[in-house]
């Protein structure tokens, strides 16, 4: 069969149930075959970047490998932001790009770009397929790499002539990679050392990251936290990895974390961190991060260990496996007495709660919108955020109790991620609402996807928190740049009319008293919906740790 059909057959073997892409000259043979296989559920986006983000959103929502397709040259370069986003957040993805004819590679041919060169540092691995016989094994290997170990995006660049050449389809070969053997089980000696530190601690804090969600370790984590009676803080990527309504939950650490999470980390004598890479937004000033604590660091990627923070007991492996091993070895004698510590932490929780003040006749507070959405959806929605204030408020004020309910570009911080990622999630998640929480800036980075949701009637609910500016940058300018609002005020279109133009239902709300009904109407609508919310234009995200400052020195929210 032809190379193009081999690709499609391989995707079926991988049980792919949604493909996001955009055609072009170098993938016409592949699209010709997609036409024959409706069971792959191809979604035509309106910009290749959205295809990559949609594949990413699909992957985050389901835990499966997301797939996107684009043509050579500009098609592939448009994917790159989405590939880099997935790479930073360890999201399994396979991106298939067309390439110019093999004989033309390197000749500056029409729509040629060096895709393997461009994506080398933003993907887990990449391939240029030079022989049609290599196509099936390459795709198999790519899926394996994308989902195993620390997951990530893998790019397969397929010249158009390879798509047209004939080969047998054989997907039965074993994957044999002598150079790639991720460690999944924790070293027993290290686990023993970790247990000793746990036993000796009086003020432990557990800090979880995205690794807990990726490995599906949330149940084991909850049991572990309850067993040693230690409070848990979850980074942006870890939200939902621990139930936020649990008495041991501390909220998020770091720049826009809760005061009590940051104070607890700073005062802790043992930090047990799982599936997290100590991002600078989490640690603040490195020298003053958890200064009194010994640190246990569980991560599947050895490069994450001792990269930013020196740790006492590193354990390389899969979070779920390691937590199971710890739970199996943990005895009552290992459990520290944390009664006093939890009382201190509870004192901080009561003293410094996350707050906002919604006046009945004032501007709508964005936090109130998110709290109300939380209430109406019983914390069960999949919330997909853009990047900026909308992202931080969503992280702070929605109650995530389960994994894969908060999808957000954490590492790369990609504006324009949220809406297409929500499209990818909503393409498969139909048993609960998928809500994109956007700002008026970021929604305009991929607003053309309204055409996609209208075409396929994908029921994404888009809330645009409109403050008529790039709010997060404006906040920094207000606090650190003498209110010189350079490049941040936005003259926006009428979002309701824009949605209407695309054939998507929409409404606008300006009155705090009408927020609840407006959200309810949005959620009840059968199909995609845009709700524009006019919010307090100068609302800030607090607390805030200024960049490079120690995390216990927060501004705002420390009444």
């Amino acid at each position, binding site marked *: 069969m032809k190379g193009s059909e081999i690709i499609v057959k391989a995707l079926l073997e991988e049980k792919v149930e949604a493909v996001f892409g955009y055609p072009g000259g170098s993938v016409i043979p592949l699209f010709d075959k997609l036409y024959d296989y409706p069971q792959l559920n191809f979604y035509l986006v309106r910009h290749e970047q959205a295809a990559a983000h949609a594949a990413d959103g699909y992957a985050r929502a389901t835990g499966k490998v997301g797939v996107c397709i684009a043509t050579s040259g500009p098609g592939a370069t448009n994917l790159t932001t989405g590939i880099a986003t997935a790479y930073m957040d360890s999201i399994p993805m396979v991106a298939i790009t067309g390439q110019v004819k093999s004989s033309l590679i390197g000749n500056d041919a029409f729509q040629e770009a060096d895709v*393997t060169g461009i994506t080398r540092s933003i993907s*887990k691995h990449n391939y*240029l397929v030079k022989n049609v016989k290599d196509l099936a094994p390459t795709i198999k290997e790519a899926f394996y790499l994308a989902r195993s170990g620390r997951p990530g995006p893998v790019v397969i660049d397929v010249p158009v002539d390879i798509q047209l050449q004939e080969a047998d389809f054989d997907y039965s070969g074993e994957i044999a990679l002598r*150079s*790639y053997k991720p460690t999944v089980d924790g070293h027993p000696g290290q686990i023993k050392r970790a247990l000793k530190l746990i036993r000796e601690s009086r003020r432990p804090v557990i800090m979880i990251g995205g690794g807990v969600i990726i490995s599906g370790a949330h149940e084991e984590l909850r049991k572990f936290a309850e067993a040693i009676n230690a409070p848990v803080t979850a980074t942006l990527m870890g939200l939902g990895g621990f139930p936020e309504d649990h008495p041991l939950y501390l909220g998020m650490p770091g720049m826009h974390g809760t005061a009590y999470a940051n104070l607890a980390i700073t005062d802790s004598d043992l930090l047990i961190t799982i599936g997290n890479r100590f991002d600078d937004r989490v640690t603040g000033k490195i020298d003053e991060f958890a200064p009194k604590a010994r640190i246990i660091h569980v991560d599947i990627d050895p*490069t994450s260990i001792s990269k930013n923070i*020196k740790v006492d007991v590193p354990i390389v492996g899969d979070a779920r496996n390691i937590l199971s091993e710890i739970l199996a070895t943990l005895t009552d004698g290992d459990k520290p007495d944390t009664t006093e510590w939890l009382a201190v932490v509870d004192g901080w929780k009561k003293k410094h709660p996350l707050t906002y003040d919604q006046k009945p006749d004032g501007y709508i507070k964005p936090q109130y919108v998110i709290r109300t959405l939380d209430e109406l959806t019983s914390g069960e929605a999949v919330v997909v955020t853009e990047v900026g204030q909308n992202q931080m408020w969503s992280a702070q004020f929605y109650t995530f109790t389960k994994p894969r309910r908060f999808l957000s570009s954490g590492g790369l911080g990609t504006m324009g991620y949220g809406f297409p990622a929500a499209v990818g999630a909503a393409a498969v998640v139909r048993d609960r609402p998928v809500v994109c929480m956007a700002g008026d800036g970021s929604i305009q980075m991929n607003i053309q996807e309204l055409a996609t949701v209208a075409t396929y009637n994908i029921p994404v609910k888009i809330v645009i928190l409109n403050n008529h500016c790039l709010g997060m940058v404006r906040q920094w300018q207000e606090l650190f740049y003498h209110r010189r609002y350079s490049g941040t005020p936005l003259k926006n279109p009428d979002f309701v009319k824009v949605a209407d133009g695309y054939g998507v239902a929409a409404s606008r709300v300006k009155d705090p008293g009408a927020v609840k009904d407006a959200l309810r109407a949005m959620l009840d609508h059968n199909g995609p919906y845009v709700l524009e919310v006019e919010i307090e234009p100068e609302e800030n995200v607090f607390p805030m740790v200024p960049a490079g400052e120690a995390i216990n020195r927060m501004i705002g929210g420390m009444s």
Partner: protein
Amino acid sequence: MSMHVLQALVENKFGVLARVSSLFSARGYNIKSLAVGETHDPSVSCMTIVVNAEDEGILEQINKQLNKLIDVITVKDITKTDYIDRELLLVRVRYDERNKARVDALHDQYTFHLFDKKDDYAVLEFTGDSMLVESLLSDLATIGVIELVRTGKIAISK
């Protein structure tokens, strides 16, 4: 800053050198030299990489990041092990009436090959370990080097 010698066995595939070199540039690590060639197993290449690492932490990261590349099979830091290293130099020097005696004196000391003698110039070829190479280069500096080409270090453990 300390110098380290890393030896990486890698898949002998298209693009591997680019993956390694772009890793170094993307993460701001300094390569002093990099020599690569096929091993007795044609599916494997050996890279000898001499790096300048600011501290142990950076060195550890370089090691781990190299290992993380899918096409890298093993990485060894052989700096503190017993190894034999060699580097090949090709140097064009002035070989005129004034310099000839000094070059010949160095020739006796270092036993290099001297060839392509013409128009008052000659090319010398020298193979030796880092110490000898550095010593020869500093001696040659006093004579004047017209052109210098070196392979970078390769090494094998004892």
